[in-house]
Every structure is written in structure tokens, then in C-alpha cells.
């Protein structure tokens, strides 16, 4: 694919999320660099772009193969692929933070300069990350059971959900 702004091959694929709809850009390294440092709103300083940071971090220019492999990774709980996340800038479920952890952590450091929360904690029903993941999985199973009209299985799942929610697991 050619760069949208010159004749060189496009090695940076940027998805802008600042407008109403995601906007895709295909640029060569040089044009991408000037795009990412330009001033889009005529005077307002630019906000760091999530997609831009992700690209910078992944250093895709010479690892297209690795990126393609990474893009195929799928969260077993919600089914979102890393490519979809990269494209839309939004994650599919809480488990993605664990499942895509090795790619997300550097991005999180880039955005926040930290990877350790130091604010408030929920006071009441707080389950472990594993329990939360299990809850989403059970909800998915329950939907499937209801669709199959297997109401006995659905009610078993409901009990299991209650147990976890009430902290008895």
C-alpha cells in the first residue's frame, strides 16, 4: 500500500479516534511523523493519539509479520481480536487487560506513566479478577443455555453466578 501523502510505501496505519467516527490513515514513516506532531485544530495543541502511541510502541515498520500474528490473538472470553482493539481503540471485556497484558502494559505506561492504581477501591462486593472473568463466562454460558431452552442448566449457572456475587466461591 502506498502512503496517502507521497509515493513511498505506507508502513504506519493510524486510526484516529478523536472525531465522531474512527478515521483511518495510511502513511510512510516520514509523513506519519509529521502527522503525529502537527497541530490538527489550528492552534490547539495535539492530544497524544492512542493509535499513534500504540504504533510507536509496536514499532511495526519492520515487524509486520509479528504484528499480523499479534493481531490474530483473540480474547477467549469476549472474542475480540487484538486487531479489532487496535482498529477501534476500545477493549471488549475486563479480561482483555489480562489477555493482552503484555501489549497493553507498555501502552498504559505510555499514557499514564504508571501501571499501579493508587486511588479508591470498591468497598463492597469486590471479586478477584479471576472471579470477574468467570462471571462473564457464566453469563455467556447462561445465554447459550437459554437459547437452547436448557432451563435446568441455566438455573444451575444462575446459582453459580449468585455464589460468586455473594463472595462464597
Amino acid at each position, binding site marked *: 500500500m502506498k502512503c496517502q501523502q507521497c509515493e513511498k510505501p505506507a508502513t504506519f496505519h493510524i486510526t484516529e479516534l478523536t472525531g465522531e467516527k474512527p478515521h483511518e490513515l495510511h502513511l510512510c514513516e516520514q509523513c506519519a511523523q509529521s502527522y503525529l506532531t502537527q497541530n490538527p485544530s489550528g492552534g490547539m495543541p495535539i492530544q497524544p493519539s492512542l493509535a499513534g502511541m500504540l504504533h510507536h510502541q509496536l514499532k511495526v515498520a519492520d515487524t509486520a509479520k509479528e504484528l499480523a500474528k499479534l493481531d490474530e490473538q483473540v480474547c477467549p472470553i469476549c472474542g475480540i481480536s487484538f486487531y479489532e482493539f487496535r482498529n477501534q481503540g476500545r477493549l471488549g471485556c*475486563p479480561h482483555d487487560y489480562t489477555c493482552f497484558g503484555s501489549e497493553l502494559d507498555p501502552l498504559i505506561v505510555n499514557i499514564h506513566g504508571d501501571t499501579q*492504581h493508587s486511588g479508591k*477501591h470498591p*468497598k463492597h462486593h469486590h471479586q478477584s479478577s479471576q472471579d470477574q472473568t468467570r462471571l462473564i463466562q457464566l453469563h455467556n454460558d447462561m445465554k447459550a443455555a437459554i437459547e437452547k431452552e436448557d432451563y435446568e442448566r441455566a438455573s444451575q449457572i444462575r446459582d453459580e453466578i449468585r455464589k460468586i456475587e455473594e463472595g462464597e466461591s
Partner: protein
Amino acid sequence: MRGSGPESDIVISSRIRLARNLAEFPFIRRCTPQDRKSIEKMVHDRLQAIPGFNTLYYLRVDELPHVDRQFLTERQLISREHAEAEGARSVAIDNDERLSVMINEEDHLRIQVMKSGLDLHSAWQQINEVDDQLESKLSYAFHERLGYLTACPTNVGTGMRVSVMLHLPALVITNQIEKVFRSLQKINLAVRGLYGEGSQAMGDFYQISNQITLGKSEEELIGQVSGVVPMIIEYERKARDFLITQNREDLHDKISRAYGILCTAQTISSEETMHLLSSVRMGVNLGLIDDLAISDINKLFVETQPAHLQKLRGNELDTAGRNIERALYLRRYLQDRGKEHRDERN
């Protein structure tokens, strides 16, 4: 936008929002229509069970006509994204329109508290209580290390965005606004126009907010924003002093002309109205216009927007129709207020 509260000559409003997700559902992008309905119903039912929350106005945004959704956006009770999205979604609003809880926005819950003037600490106190109450009935997606989990990694951690809306016309006139922005960016604060992300500053209104949400406590994030705002207020006041001492006639002329157009125009766009009201607002603050109060101007900013005009008129209007209606509304309002002030003086 009541024109009251600390520093309300320059600070329009203080707002804090928290992004929260329910532990048992995928994030909104991966929700089925049925998931969205279940979340919407679950949150509604649980809100009803919290003492004091059963008096909230509860609106199903997806069932509202377009003009009503726009009306809520203009009052900053829902985001543009929430107004335009698809699928089951709603908003709960308190009586005085300070608290709103969006359900099924980008995150399952977006809780927001807004105060007039610079009042972040009381906004935090209120939103923290609301969050605790909701969390006693709902189980939030929370990670031991990463904090509250959100659909976008830019909100993870506290899930908190602290924003202060400032009116900075003198810094714009004296070309110092860029300098202020650059220094804010260096300390990780974001500057945006009136309607948040991606929007241009209209009528010299700028929203300053935290960019980082992870690694600092809520109080630290609030402290960062509320620490920098007095400095910007100081800059703006200095720029106003400079203008009034160095250039009083020109400034007075600019403000009086703006007021004159608003009092007499027969058709006027919303952009021009914002621009002119901004000058008049500064004129009121500087004592150059004495028959209007700041609360009048703040009210006009809200009520001259498209959906408000259409609600007022009671029917849909196209752009040309709205421009005529807006001019009529402004003429009537300003005439009445002017008369009241003259009567008070006599």
C-alpha cells in the same frame, strides 16, 4: 452554568465524571442487544433501591425523539456519543441537574457531577458518595493492580476525569492563550473546546482536564487541576486589566457593538451568538455593561442552542428558521432585562 460559586466570573463550571463497568458483562462494544437491555434494566432497578435515588428522572435515551436527545446534550447531561449511539441506553438525572448517570455509554456507567464556578472538592465529595452507593448494589469490574477497568485504556485506574470550564476572552485577544496551553500540556493536562473531545473552542470557552487516570489518587488528580486553575484565572484577570488600562475605548467599543448586534439582529447563527455573548460576558465582568448579570449570559448561552430554541417554539425548525427564532429570543430577552434594570434604577 448558574453564574454562581467561587470565581464564577471566569470559571463557568466544575465537573467530575467516573467511568465504571459491571464485572459480569463484556464492555459495551462487545455487548449483544440483549446484554445492553439487561444492564440497563439491572442498573435502573438497583438505582431505585438506593434511598434518595428513586427521585431521579430516568430517561430511556433510545426512546427519545432526536430533539430531546440534543436538548440533553446542550444541557451537558449526556454526551454527544450517548445521544447518537444505538441500542438500549438511558440517563438518570437529579432535580437540580447537577448529577447525571449515563447507562451504556462508552462504559456501562458514566457518573457525572457538575457544579457552578470552581468547586471541585464538593463535586468530588458528592460523586464519591454516589459511587459508593451504586457500588453497594452493583459489582464493578476492578483489577487489583490496574484499578477500575474501562473500555478505553485511557480511562483505566480511577476512571476519573476532572474538568473545569473557563471563559478566557482576554487571553485570546492578547494572544497569550497558546502559551497557557503549552504549559498545561507539559504538566499532563488536556485543553479542549466547549463540547469536549475533538471540539473547537467556541466563544472563548476552554475545558481543562486531567489526562492521566492511573497511578495518582482521586485527590491528587483533583489537586493538580484545582492547583493550576487559580494561575490561569490570574493570567486572565491580568490580561483584562491590561486591555482596560491600555485600550479601554477599543475594548468598550467591541463589547458595546457585540451587545448592540445581539439586541437588534433579525437572524443570527449559533456561532455568532456564542462569539458575541462571550464579549458581552466580559463586558459585564468589567462593569462596562451594567444592565445584565453573568447568570443572564450563562442562561442565554444554553437557551440559544438549536434544541432549546425548538423546544421553546414547540416545533422543528431548519437552520434558517432557528437563526430567526434565536434573534427574536435574544431581542426579547435583552429588552426585558434592560427594562427591568432601568426600572430598578428609577
